[in-house]
């Protein structure tokens, strides 16, 4: 009796599935632990402190088990391995994005401490939600089934809705939350509709099966499939904030607590792009209608509009929001090639983007001081005189964002451009060339508005705000250090990271 039930359980989820899921489980456990903390520790500030450390431990543990996972090359190298009866797939892409999410999470948590103290918000759920959202993203990156994708996506989204609105006593925060929420729900409904249609056409939700069906059987109606694909595109485009689905982005970014903004600007985008890889590089390939040109258009519009609007911004968070939109455009550019190289280039871009963008945001966070918001560009005037180190760090991050060597940003740009050019040379498709050239022009525009900040820092006269002392505590200092180091290091010696990115190349082999 008991044995039978055990057997059944065993069939449903056997031990190796659990093993594959340990990183997620770690996060889950520690997150829940933090939630339960409120039962034991009544005093808010104290609880906040403890949960902060718990969160760090959680990330570290998960990271540790993640590294253990990495050691077992046989699992994820070539093609990868499916778990939970094909619901979840552990391949190069998954592994790579795990890394991105974990690093982002760690840095975000580092940054949160001081910031929340300054703002004096002490709801410890903050960290729990952070961990859980990270976990959700990890599932998302690995999910091999429409259902999995949808659920993990929603899981992540819900956590982040809450986090955006975390400063519930500030209208900005709440407004950001409501906007993000409504639009998010709206777009995910679209996504869902698309998925349902796909299911309707193919009768299955597993990506591999769908792919098989789409390639072999030709008795399904292509228009429906295309429409559903477009709907999915909308949903994912919303997540990565591609124009014209980007509207939520600046508001949510500006409203949200800055660490969360930093987090959102990297992790959910990355997750979104993971799905992009899974769907648009592989799944929809058989479609005869070349949606590449659609993507190309999307990327052009995205990077251009993002850049152009950024030029006139005066609030640095908003500026970075728009810049992140344009970066999304660049990543989409990398997507166009639809081959191993594209996967690689996107991976590299996101990795570099992680460090430089979070670096920039950590400067913004550090600039947040008691009773000084420090989010206006003019608050950075003459920073070089008052805080030379911070100013030079910021300069490096901005240079990197603009893609000037020798910084990570250049490597990133290098990869997306090269993927496009490569594809252009292969298929003499002029559109790709135009995309590349427009990308080049955009790089110039981007430099212009990044240097509006640099200009203020180096050539402006110090103001009261910039004179105010900046207290960098150990954690924010650490995150600054890490991001700075990697921004430079990747720029100078990208070798190991590229190898790491190469993992992903094989993982979609089945689809090429």
């Amino acid at each position, binding site marked *: 009796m008991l044995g039978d039930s055990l057997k059944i359980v065993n069939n449903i989820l056997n031990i190796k599935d659990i093993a594959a899921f340990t990183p997620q489980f770690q996060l889950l456990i520690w997150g829940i632990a933090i939630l339960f903390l409120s039962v034991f520790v009544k005093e808010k500030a104290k609880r906040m402190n403890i949960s902060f450390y718990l969160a760090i431990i959680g990330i570290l543990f998960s990271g540790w088990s993640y590294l253990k996972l990495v050691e077992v090359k046989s699992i994820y190298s070539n093609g990868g391995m499916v778990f939970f009866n094909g619901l979840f797939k552990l391949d190069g892409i998954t592994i790579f994005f795990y890394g991105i999410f974990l690093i982002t999470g760690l840095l975000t948590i580092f940054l949160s401490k001081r910031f929340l103290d300054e703002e004096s918000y002490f709801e410890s759920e903050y960290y729990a939600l952070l961990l859980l959202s990270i976990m959700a993203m990890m599932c998302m990156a690995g999910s091999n089934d429409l259902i999995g994708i949808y659920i993990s996506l929603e899981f992540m989204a819900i956590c982040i809705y809450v986090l955006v609105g975390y400063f519930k006593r500030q209208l900005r925060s709440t407004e950001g939350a409501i906007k993000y929420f409504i639009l998010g729900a709206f777009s995910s409904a679209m996504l869902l509709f698309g998925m349902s249609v796909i299911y309707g056409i193919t009768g299955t939700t597993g990506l591999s099966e769908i792919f098989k069906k789409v390639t072999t059987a030709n008795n399904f109606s292509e228009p429906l499939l295309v429409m559903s694909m477009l709907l999915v595109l909308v949903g994912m485009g919303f997540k990565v904030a591609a124009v014209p689905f980007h509207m939520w982005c600046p508001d949510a970014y500006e409203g949200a607590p800055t660490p969360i903004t930093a987090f959102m600007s990297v992790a959910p985008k990355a997750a979104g792009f993971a799905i992009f890889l899974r769907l648009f590089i592989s799944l929809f390939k058989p479609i005869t209608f070349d949606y590449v040109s659609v993507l190309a258009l999307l990327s052009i519009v995205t990077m251009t509009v993002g850049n152009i609007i950024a030029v006139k911004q005066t609030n640095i968070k908003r500026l970075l929001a728009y810049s992140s939109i344009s970066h999304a455009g660049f990543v989409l550019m990398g997507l166009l090639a639809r081959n191993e190289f594209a996967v690689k280039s996107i991976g590299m871009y996101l990795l570099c983007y992680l460090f430089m963008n979070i670096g920039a945001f950590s400067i913004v966070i550090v600039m947040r001081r008691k009773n000084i918001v420090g989010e206006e560009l003019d608050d950075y005037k003459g920073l070089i005189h008052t805080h030379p180190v911070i100013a030079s760090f910021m300069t490096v991050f901005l240079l990197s964002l603009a893609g000037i060597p020798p910084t990570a940003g250049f490597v990133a740009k*290098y990869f997306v451009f090269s993927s496009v050019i490569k594809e252009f*040379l292969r298929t003499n498709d002029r559109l790709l060339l135009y995309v590349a050239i427009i990308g*080049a022009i955009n790089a110039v525009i981007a430099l212009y508005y990044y*240097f509006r900040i640099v200009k203020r820092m180096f*050539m402006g006269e110090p103001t009261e705000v910039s004179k105010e002392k900046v207290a960098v505590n150990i954690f924010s200092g650490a995150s600054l250090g890490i991001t700075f180091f990697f921004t430079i290091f990747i720029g100078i010696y990208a070798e190991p990271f590229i190898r790491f990115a190469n993992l992903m190349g094989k993982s979609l082999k089945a689809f090429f």
Partner: protein
Amino acid sequence: MEILGVPILNAVTYFPLIGFLIILLIPKKKETLIKIVANVTAFIGFLISLPLIINWYKPEVIKGMKDGMRYVIDVPWIRTIGARYQFGIDGISLLLVLLTTLLGFIAILSSWSAIKTRVKEYYIYMLLLQTGMLGVFMATDLFLFYVFWEVMLVPMYFLIGVWGGPRKLYAAIKFFLYTLAGSVLMLLAILALYFKYISIFGWDHRTFSLFKFLHAGLDPQFQFWAFLAFFVGFAIKVPMFPFHTWLPDAHVEAPTAGSVILAGVLLKMGTYGFVRFSLPLFPDAMIKFTPLLMTLCVIGIIYGALVAMMQTDMKKLVAYSSVSHLGMTMLGVFALTQIGLQGGVVQMINHGISTGALFLIVGIVYERRHTRLIKEYGGLSHSMPVYATIFLIMTLSSIGLPGLNGFIGEFMILQGTFARTDLRVYAILAASGVILGAAYMLWLYQRVMFGKLDKEENKKMKDLNLREVFTFVPLIIMAVWIGIYPSFWLKYLKNPVKRITDIYQKKLAENKINVGHKYKVDYKGMKKIINNKMSEE
């Protein structure tokens, strides 16, 4: 060839960084100390670049040659994409490297008293800039080249933007964006080249090395586009005629030392880029474009000269004169003949020397009077004879008086262009730039140095002090040396230039542009005269 175990090229390139680090550690307040460190660094930097030329013909150095490059450093850098850390210099780079180290030292020396604010940062940027520029002239791996090419933009931006004149912010960002726009296109072209090579030789032979690309055998169509992209990148830097408008602004606003480096070295990066990359890589496209390029050069020469003539601001005048001079340089380069090319390279050096010196000269009076308007001056020869003499020498060298460096360059360029019978008309047009050159320079000299010494503040202007004189001495020596005995420098150029022109020998023959073509104008009226003469006798 090593210095203290460091390969010499690395030593030369990165030595400024040592000074940079030291200065980083010195507190802001200790300005004199910072200045001393910077000057010493720059000077030693110059000294350790001398072994390059001293050991040039040493057997072990010659043995170490690879693809005509000496002191080669070649280690894998980013294996996965095939980028290598590949340094090496031939005669062309040698001269430019020496020029860079020399001018760098002079520029730093010249700014001893000129720079009063934010001294620490200033020298930091100067030294960074130095490293960046040297790297550009040594890199033979396009990826590496591109990295250095962009790196040196940033310090220059700050030099102009922080220590510049009234409209410095505008000039600085304009400079940066202009150059970046060009170089990003160049990046695309580099990538195209890279993948083209891969598509021919396979992924395992992926590389950015110039010398590999040389054997790729690119099809004309591809060359056409790639050349255009490179052209934009380099032409903006040179700057050639339609792309030159950033130059006057940058020059006028930049601090003196900045202008010196800008004119002396940065512009050379463009011309050098053409010589090192565009010419060998895209011969077919080059030949196709020659008439257009020549036209641009000629326009640049005459146009620049005429605009210079009308300037009221000394620095702007000199800036436009560089537009003219660089037009001349590029004329020689695009002539694709040995002499033209050699002349072009020599003219790069000359321009670095004489224009650099002219900017220093302008800087000196600016430092004393804080104005650059020509009409503010006049009759300075009375109050500052030494200054007058140096100014005169440099003016003459810039208008190409025989016996000084300018003449050698211009003469060889024109002769070299003239050697291409299909390009003679350009040579003839370009030669008229020499007249205009004399016109605007002498006019400038007259307006500044001659005439009555009427203005009070000019009367009590101090003549050059010893430091300032020393900044000029090496330049004058070089000017005379190149003027009297250029063979010494030309011999370093012979082989590299030959390597480039040999590519074109064949191509030109193929394209029916034969150099030995004969023409014969039959002149009706003449016949009559002759006949009369004959009948008389």
